[in-house]
């Protein structure tokens, strides 16, 4: 297995450790893994992995691994979970998740392991506490504020129509003009 010998510079000259050369194959594997997970069949993720836990690792289902991996952000890609990413690093992380689950850790403990090393950043949904609460509350608050503004604007617009006096009566001059206009239209 060979790697691309040289790559273009990444952001700030860094190279995310993803095997882009095998992107197509990896995407296929990733899709296969998703499909396999949905169909509850054997997933290629497990085929590529070499769980060192033996029987214990085999008892950990792909669903259990995916449950943890889908909550973790793939660290080398933008906005993909560890479950969805075809990158090598995400694969290694899935293997590690499987291994730690097999060793008897709970899903929460495995997640904490990653948080301790990568920070809360690694969680796709930030925990709803502390300053993070702003993230959770702000969208709902913005929608409520928007609704309040809309309600106020529409009420203000409707008010004169509904509460206003009936339209002023038409005088004889207007009546004569309407008649004349209608007459002209008929011709």
């Amino acid at each position, binding site marked *: *297995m*060979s*790697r*691309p*010998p*040289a*790559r273009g*510079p*990444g*952001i*700030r*000259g*860094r*190279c*995310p*450790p993803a*095997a882009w050369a095998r992107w197509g194959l990896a995407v296929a594997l990733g899709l296969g893994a998703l499909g396999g997970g949905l169909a509850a069949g054997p997933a290629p993720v497990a085929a590529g992995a*070499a769980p060192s836990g033996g029987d214990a690792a085999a008892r950990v289902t792909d669903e259990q691994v995916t449950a943890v991996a889908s909550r973790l952000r793939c*660290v*080398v890609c933008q906005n993909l979970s560890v479950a969805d990413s075809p990158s*090598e*690093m995400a694969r*290694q*992380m899935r*293997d*590690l998740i499987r291994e730690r689950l097999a060793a008897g850790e709970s899903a929460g403990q495995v997640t904490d392991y*990653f*948080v*301790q*090393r*990568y*920070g809360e*950043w690694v969680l796709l949904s930030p925990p709803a506490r502390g300053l993070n609460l702003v993230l959770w509350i702000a969208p709902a608050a913005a929608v409520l504020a928007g609704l309040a503004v809309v309600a106020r604007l529409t009420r*203000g617009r409707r*008010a004169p129509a509904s509460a206003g006096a009936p339209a002023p009566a038409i005088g004889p001059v207007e009546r004569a003009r309407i008649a004349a206009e209608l007459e002209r239209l008929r011709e």
Partner: protein
Amino acid sequence: MTLRPRWLIPLAALPVVGLLAYGFRADPRAIPSPLVGRPASAFAVRTFDGRTVTLDSLRGQVVVLNFWASWCYPACYEEAPALEAGWRRYRERGVTVLGVAIQDDAAASRGFIERFGLSFPNAPDPGGKLSIEYGVYGVPESFVIDRRGRIRTKHVGAVTDEVFRTAVEPLLAEAPG
């Protein structure tokens, strides 16, 4: 209904513009490592030349733990000479440079080591265990571990002479243990 001052609307947009201005100027990849200031995780690696290196055996030294890959061009190619030079300059004073090649083909790693004539210990990272243990995002990333085994700096990007001067040298004056 009272007429609101017209400037209220642009005023309301100010916080949003401010937030965007901050957000777009910040580097989304510059994520502070929670490991800085914490004791470095113990590890044992087997180097490409067959030696076993443990972090415990390096206690009392300042350790530059560098994660790299032969496919990481150009940053890892830029820093390799600086790492070798730093290792040669500081090793007598108690600095160890330890390279870890992540997600790399062993033959390609060896070729990289040979190409730059790296004389400090270098080891592969089977399964990515060590890089995940250290919360590595990409390569190159380096950790400076002090004499008491604490992570003091995480350097993202190519290591330069400047990094040795500012992040490594000051730690040499500290007492071990």
